């Protein structure tokens, strides 16, 4: 499964678990408008660490949270 597909799958799974209505996942979708909250994103990142084996947020320098869905996917694709 590609990294993108893995990310999409986690977004969808967490949305269902958290009883949230997920917006259509396009690259330009602002994560703020995705329908998910910060807790949901933390859960997604934790699960992605388990499935992909790395956490791109585990860095010493200050990191801003990705603004769009495309940024989020790129963060994981570039880290790999």
């Amino acid at each position: 499964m590609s990294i993108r597909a893995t990310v999409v799958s986690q977004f969808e799974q967490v949305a269902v678990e958290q009883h949230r209505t997920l917006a259509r996942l396009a690259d330009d979708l602002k994560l703020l408008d995705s329908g998910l909250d910060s807790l949901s994103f933390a859960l997604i990142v934790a699960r992605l660490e388990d499935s992909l084996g790395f956490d791109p947020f585990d860095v010493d320098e200050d990191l801003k949270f990705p603004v769009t869905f495309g940024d989020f996917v790129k963060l994981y694709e570039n880290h790999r």
Partner: protein
Amino acid sequence: MSSVLPNLSLSGSHRDQSFATSFGEQGRARNAFYFASDGGPLFGWLHSATGSPRNMGLVICKPFGYEALCAHRSLRCFAETAAELGIPSLHVDYLGTGDSADMDPLADQISVWTHDVVAAVRELRKRTSVQQVCVLGVRLGALLAVLAAEECKDITSLVLISPIVSGRRYLRALRTARLAASLNAATPDADNAEAGDGAMEASGFLFSAATIGSLTQIDLKTRAVPPVADILVIDGKSLPGAGPWARQLAESGIRANYLELPGLIEMIMTAPQFAQVPREMVAATREWLNGTCDTKSNLAAPAQRSEPTSTSILMTQDDGEPPLKLTERALFFGADNRLFGIITEPRIGEIRRRGVMLLNAGSDSHIGVNRVNVTLAREWASRGYVALRMDLGGLGDSDTRPGQPDDLVFPPAALDDIAAGVELLRTRYAARDVALFGLCSGAYHSLRAAVAGVPVNRILMVNPQNYFWKEGTTLEDLQLAEVVHNPRLYVHRLFSRDAWQRMLGGRVNLWRIARIYAYRSLLAMESKMRDVARRMHIRLPNDLGSELAQIYKRGVRIVLIFARGEPGIDLLKLQAGSSVKKLGGYCRIHIIDGADHIFSQSGPRMIMKKILSGELFARN
């Protein structure tokens, strides 16, 4: 290990009736009380054994912050399950959490809370004469249980549910949540306003810099095996992390069992109104306790004692004066003594007779989102108010009415419950001026109480998302508020290619979305029509504008506080129309930038609290 379900009939997203019933019986099986720890008074629930007494007690250690709010009912379920087995249990709030006393914000919470767990173990032994104590911990509570076992030989076994094995990894997850929350912040540093240097706020709850330092150093895989005889580790199937450590324990020779079971996310990471008791985890814990604990019941009967239901809370004062001593009392009240609340009394000698009631937000318990009800109650009491933070029936620690499910955000008897609380303030405390405070559904209930004529003088509403509610409506129907707020989102969904594909595949109810969107247009038309009717003094049913005018005529002050962008603002405009302006100073509206729905970031939360206090103490 076989999976034997306990004698509970859990179904869907509601809890079981027998669980609710056990609270409604005469001779209450659980009692709220306060007991001492090194740092100050701790609040706890003592669940007496209802089955044949065993020689074991259970201390329950909750997770941290928002996870604890979500898990509130589940933890009670674990306690009740143990009690049915004859195992009394003590469910404790650590210092600075729940209803316990506040703590030094700079202290190392890990160290303080570990000592609190040890204090709870000793208290349980003192009150029940049990010889063995098992500590059950969830997430951070599980880590504290392990640390407490290193200090206290009275702890003989552990049940660790999704334990935090690596403090560093746990902090990383909290930081990610915080980073994500910063997307919504007007200023990224706004959320550190209360946190102080080096501290971290996670979903509205604070870790001090000292705590972060401690947690960073902790990795259970590198620590000595806990000095207990038996350990049960239950990992969440959807987020397993403790497997390697559990294997390490087993290899060390300790009697350690490891299970991966469903239900973790639903218990600790799902909003309280949707949270679910993890049935299989409860069943597994029950079976393990049953097989582990001593069945000898030749306990000496504990001395008859009544648990202290009140304590002193010390409030520091800004002007260098000695700390102010307030009294807090835990009590059941109302017609059948089903309703639970904590009263914070002002200093002795206070002559002004003013009371304020703080209501539940959603299904969150009486401590409120981010524990805001506790801090507000204590602050307002320090300035002369009698403050009652209470749980409506079926929420938090209140009993559930027979025939009703638990955790209804809009329980049918809410008005009766609020009236009972107001009655308590007016009769027992002779309050002549009573205010109601509520966030989200709490704001709704405050409004409805005022409209229904419950004798209040002021209603302080924060982020209401609806002003009307019909029995049979579901929480999902509150999507109406979203449509009002962002109709373009639904237009996009209605007309996108993906949406059509999903519709044709039967995967989305577009008809429902279309209906909601059409309803928005109707709302806008209806709003204009209602304004005309009001001008002609024609009273239409369910007219928010008329209702606000009606309570204004009775002299009730109305205060509305919104986070900017909240759907309740537009809904207010649509449903109350021009009435709001006509109320002038009797209806004051404040909008706060950079806040989310529950004010989880400390910067905007401080502003909200300041506005609330200003409005509560305003005498014009």
